[in-house]
């Protein structure tokens, strides 16, 4: 990611902090409700409580999209798009391989939300790939300063 203090990046960091806080609160509430009051929750309410922790995570995808849209530096915006595509490609590729391995009985079925963890891991890979490419170009340019 960019080393510049882009306002879009700052907004993303703030949004991420709020969403992750909500995630922890919702997850705590959902787990507590199911563990303690599980017997008394069913029907639509059970579905709503189970889905609750997913909402802030979906919000993170929105925050990433908003950061891309709000980034005014077009080259940095392109880098963010590349990183996001690398992350999505990585997550989908790994999940596809795991899906087939599970289909043929070689591994146990994989929970779908692993794709989320793989996506965020992929964001890290994407950042490393673009940073490495940039550093190499900097060295080639010579007078980067």
């Amino acid at each position, binding site marked *: 990611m*960019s*080393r*510049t203090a*882009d306002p879009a990046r700052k907004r993303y960091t703030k949004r991420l902090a709020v969403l992750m806080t909500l995630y922890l609160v919702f997850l705590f509430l959902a787990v507590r409700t199911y563990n303690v009051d599980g017997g008394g929750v069913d029907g639509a309410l059970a579905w709503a409580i189970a889905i609750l922790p997913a909402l802030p995570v979906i919000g993170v995808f929105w925050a990433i999209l908003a950061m891309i849209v709000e980034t*005014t*530096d*077009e*080259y*940095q915006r*392109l880098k963010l798009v590349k990183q996001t595509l690398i992350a999505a490609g990585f997550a989908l590729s790994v999940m596809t391989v795991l899906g087939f391995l599970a289909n043929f009985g070689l591994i146990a079925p994989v929970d779908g939300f692993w794709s989320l963890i793989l996506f965020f891991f992929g964001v890290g890979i994407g950042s490393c790939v673009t940073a490495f490419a*940039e550093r190499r*170009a*900097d060295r*080639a*340019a010579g*007078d*980067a*300063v």
Partner: protein
Amino acid sequence: MKNRLKVLRAERGWSQADLAERLAVSRQSVNAIETGRYDPSLPLAFAIADIFGLTIEEVFLRG
């Protein structure tokens, strides 16, 4: 796309960071454009040309 950014900067004694500040973009952006790794949009190309007081054709080269 080939360009004369490096020469034009040198003539004015500007670093990539100086040019980046004038364009309100990151230094990495200037480096990417200068080394031909990234072709700027038309508005950014106009902004670059304006800063040097030249036309786009005098900054960016065909071929």
